[in-house]
């Protein structure tokens, strides 16, 4: 698909689902989000970023029903930070799966107080 087709496709996506673009609560009210945006944000770009994050989260195993609510609770800024970068962001998980050599090194660094991978170590000091 060439660049032009992609652009047209994106535009069509916006046109077809764009009716759902987040509109202010009432036409007359300037929303708090608008006031907080340092410059006027590009609403279409924000919308696309939100769609990107949604799609990525689904590809990481979040089901369709819950993904919408999860993304809805994020601000435009937060969505902007995540878009296309979910794979690089830290994801707090846990300690399992550390391979053996690393295990030994980390055990030593734990004891030295440089790391704290294992709850059972007590650092020398």
């Amino acid at each position, binding site marked *: 698909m060439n660049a032009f087709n992609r652009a047209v496709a994106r535009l069509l996506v916006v046109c077809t689902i764009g009716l759902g673009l987040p509109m202010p*609560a009432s036409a007359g009210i300037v929303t708090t989000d608008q006031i907080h945006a340092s410059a006027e944000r590009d609403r279409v770009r924000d919308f696309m970023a939100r769609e990107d994050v949604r799609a990525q989260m689904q590809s990481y195993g979040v089901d369709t029903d819950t993904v919408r609510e999860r993304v809805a609770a994020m601000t435009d800024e937060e969505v902007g930070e995540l878009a296309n970068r979910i794979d690089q962001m*830290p994801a707090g998980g846990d300690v399992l799966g550390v391979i053996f050599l690393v295990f030994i090194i980390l055990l030593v660094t734990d004891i030295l107080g440089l790391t704290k991978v294992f709850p059972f170590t007590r650092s020398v000091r």
Partner: protein
Amino acid sequence: MRCRIRTPAIAGVLFLIVLLTGCTTPQVSALRANAPATLPPQIELATVPFFPQEEYQCGPAALATALVYGGVATSPAALVPQVYLPGREGSLQTEMLAATRRHDRLAYRLAPSLEDLLLEVAAGNPVIVLQNLSFAFAPVWHYAVVIGYDREREEIILRSGTTRRLVMTLSTFERIWARAAHWAMVALPPRQLPETAIEANYVAAAAALERVSAAGARQAYAAALEKWPANLAARIGAGNAAYALKDLAAAAISYHQATLDHPLAGDAWNNLAQVQFELGHRNEAMLAAQRAVALGGPRIADYRDTLKAIAASP
């Protein structure tokens, strides 16, 4: 992938590490040199609940710890579908903040300061922290909740993973916390200001809460205005939250106050015009809308629409 171990090389590395551990970490030294007088020597929030984490699920466990302590009826299992990302076997920081808002709690990110973190704990607020337990080249990201410290012994106390009361030295904590860019947050009832709240950041956090909970945001704006009565964004936000809750009279009072405190704020005049119009006060609405248009600014097109709608009505 296989690694060949070379003993002298490892010995060298270890020697270097031993040299490195000799020094205290920067923020711990600073704290030692001049801690604020308001910081108690030691504290432990012993009643903070403990949820031993399931595999990979320190995010839901840490969040549940803070939320349940703040009076939310939830559990790690209930939070898994809100923060856990199966494909990454972990939880993103953004989602920890976003899920907090979904429980009507204000998610506030702390400044990257150990002193601020301890001040929050001393004020009775458990702090959720992200840590990189390992090194940057093989990160092990982990959420835990700081519940206490002892400055004399230079120790910090956490609810962490499967350990109910994990005690580590402040220096070790600072190292693994620094490797996660000193990320820390509190999840508080919206009427309660964080001890270390910074005006602009707090009001932005309240606006983020407004996305999912107008009622919660309304309380958060009220708390902000008590401390910073001249904050324009909080004043208009309070109006917008009241407006979203269909409390037009309260919204009008907030917008009106905003125009008194900030007569050059077009947004305040515009919103006042709209709500006066909806309350049936056409003349006041007209005057306010004209004022907004006269002031102009980046949203002048919106102000013109408001004025046009009012003028078109009988």
